[in-house]
C-alpha cells in the first residue's frame, strides 16, 4: 500500500475507530480486502496499538483523580531507560509514560480513585524504585482537551442552511 494512503487510513482510524472497513474502503478508493489486510498488518506490527473511546469521566462520576508525576532518576546508560520504563509501565495505575528532555527524566500520568491512593502509590511504589532520586506530583484539576479532542461539546453548525 502506498505510504500516503496508509497514513490517511491511520488518520481516519485515529479520529474515529468506529469507521467500518467498508466505509474506509470507499473513502480511500481501495478494496475492502485491502483495508482488512492493511489493518491486520498494522495491528500485528503494533503500529495500531489499540482502539480506545475518549470518555469525559467527569460527566459520569467525579471521583477519578489523575496526577502528573515527574521522576528524576540516576543517569542511565545503554538500555537503562528502557529497562526502567518497563518497570514503571508494569503498574496498572500508570496510564501514560514519557521519557523527557529537560529538568526531569520521566513524566508519568497516574490514575486513581483518591488523592490518598495516588500519594501512596507515588511514595510507596514509584519513589521506592532504586534508580528514582526524586518525584514531584501535580494533581490535575480539570481536563479540557485530550488527544486533540476538546471535552466541550462542539457548538452547533454556524452556517446558514442554504447558501449559493
Amino acid at each position: 500500500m502506498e505510504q500516503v494512503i496508509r497514513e490517511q487510513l491511520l488518520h481516519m482510524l485515529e479520529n474515529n475507530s468506529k469507521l467500518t472497513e467498508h466505509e474506509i474502503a470507499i473513502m480511500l478508493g481501495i478494496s475492502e480486502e485491502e483495508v482488512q489486510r492493511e489493518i491486520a498488518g498494522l495491528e500485528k506490527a503494533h503500529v495500531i496499538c489499540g482502539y480506545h473511546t475518549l470518555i469525559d469521566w467527569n460527566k459520569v462520576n467525579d471521583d477519578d483523580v489523575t496526577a502528573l508525576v515527574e521522576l528524576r532518576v540516576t543517569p542511565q546508560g545503554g538500555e537503562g531507560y528502557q529497562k526502567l520504563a518497563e518497570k514503571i509501565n508494569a503498574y496498572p495505575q500508570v496510564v501514560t509514560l514519557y521519557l523527557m528532555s529537560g529538568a526531569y527524566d520521566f513524566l508519568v500520568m497516574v490514575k486513581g480513585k483518591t488523592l490518598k491512593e495516588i500519594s501512596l502509590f507515588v511514595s510507596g511504589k514509584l519513589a521506592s524504585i532504586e534508580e528514582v532520586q526524586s518525584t514531584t506530583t501535580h494533581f490535575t484539576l480539570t481536563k479540557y482537551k485530550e488527544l486533540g479532542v476538546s471535552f466541550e461539546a462542539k457548538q452547533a453548525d454556524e452556517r446558514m442552511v442554504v447558501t449559493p
Partner: protein
Amino acid sequence: MREKLSQKVLNLKSSGIRAFFDMANEIPDVISLGVGEPDFDTPWHIREAGIQALQSGKTFYTSNAGLQELRAAISSYTKRKTGLTYNPENQIIVTVGGSEAIDLALRALLNAGDEVIYLEPGFVSYYPCIKLADGVPVPIRLIEENRFRLKPEQLEAAVTPKSKVLILSYPNNPTGAVMEKEDLEALLPVIQKHDLIVISDEIYGELTYGVKHCSIAGLPGMEQRTIIINGFSKSFAMTGWRLGYALGNHEIIEQMVKIHQFAVMCAPTISQYAAIEAMEQGDGDIEAMRESYDQRRKFLYHELQRLGLPCFEPQGAFYMFPNIREFGLSSGEFALKLLKEEKVAVVPGDSFGECGEGFVRISYAASLQNLKEAVNRIFRFLSRYRT
C-alpha cells in the same frame, strides 16, 4: 415607491436560492447539504493573525488595491501554485470576496450592449452582475454527457460580433466539474479568433481531486487576456472574512481599482492581515481539508450510486449534481418535498440557470455522520417516489 427605483434593478430576479433558504430556515432539525461554504472553521493560526492585527490596532484603511504585503504574498503564492507571475504593484487587487472581483471585472470591461458569454449551470452572480454592468448575458448550456465541460463548438456557436468576455468557472459550482489542460487548450483558437477577454473564476482551484487544477491564464497567449478571480473563502475556509482578489493585465486591474476605490475604499483591513498568514503558512491546511473533502466525496458518490441516483463523478469543489429527472418532479418540487418530508436540504438545480432543471446540488461539506443520515433519508424518499 416602485416608480422611484431603478428599472435595471427591479428587473433582476433575486436568487432562487434565497426563496428556498427562507423556507429551509424555518424547519427545525434540517440536515443541510445545501451550503455553499466549507464546514471547517478558519484554521486557528489564521484567526490568530486576525486577532493579532486587531490587538495591535490595525484598524485603519489600507491602500485601495490592498496591503502591499498581502499583494506580495498573493504574488508569491500564485507563482508557487501556478508558475504565473503577477506584479504586486499593478496586477493584483484585493477585493471584498471573489464576488466583488467578479463585479469589478465586468464593470471595468463592459460598455452597454457588449455580450458576455457565461456557463450554465453556474454560480448565481454572473448573470445579475453582467446585467448591472449593462452587458448582455449569453449563457451556454452545458450538458451532463460532456461532464459539464465547455466544448469549443459550443463556444463558437455562442460568439457574435458583439461578444467581448467569456466567464469560465472551473472547478465549478454547482456541478463539481473541472476542465483539464487539453479541454482548455481546445478553446484557445476560438478565444483568440474572436479576441475574447476571459474572466476565470478559480475560487475552487485548490479543491480538485485526482487531477491538478489548470489555470487558463497559463496557456500560450492567455496571460494578457485573462483575469483570474480567486479568494480565501473556499480554500482557507474564510467565507465570513469577505476577502478575495483578482489578477491580470495591469490596464484592466487599474480600472478595477478605480471602481473599488469609490465603491468600498478597500477590503477589510483585519481580514487582509489574516490573509497574509493564510498565503504564507496555509499550505498544510489546504492539504488537510482537501484530503477530508475527497474522502467525503468518495463516500457520497458511492452512496448516490448505491441509491441508483445518476450522477457524473465530480472532480472539484465540494458539490455533487445528481440527475433527478426519473422522478417526474421539477428540481424545485424535488428539493421542497425532500425538505418537508425528510428534512434534508439540497439546492434545486435551476437556481444555477435554466439548464440546471432536472438536477439538484448536494454539498458534501458536511460531517460524515450527517452525510450518512442524509443518505438514509434520501433513500427513504426515493423509494416513495420510485414507481
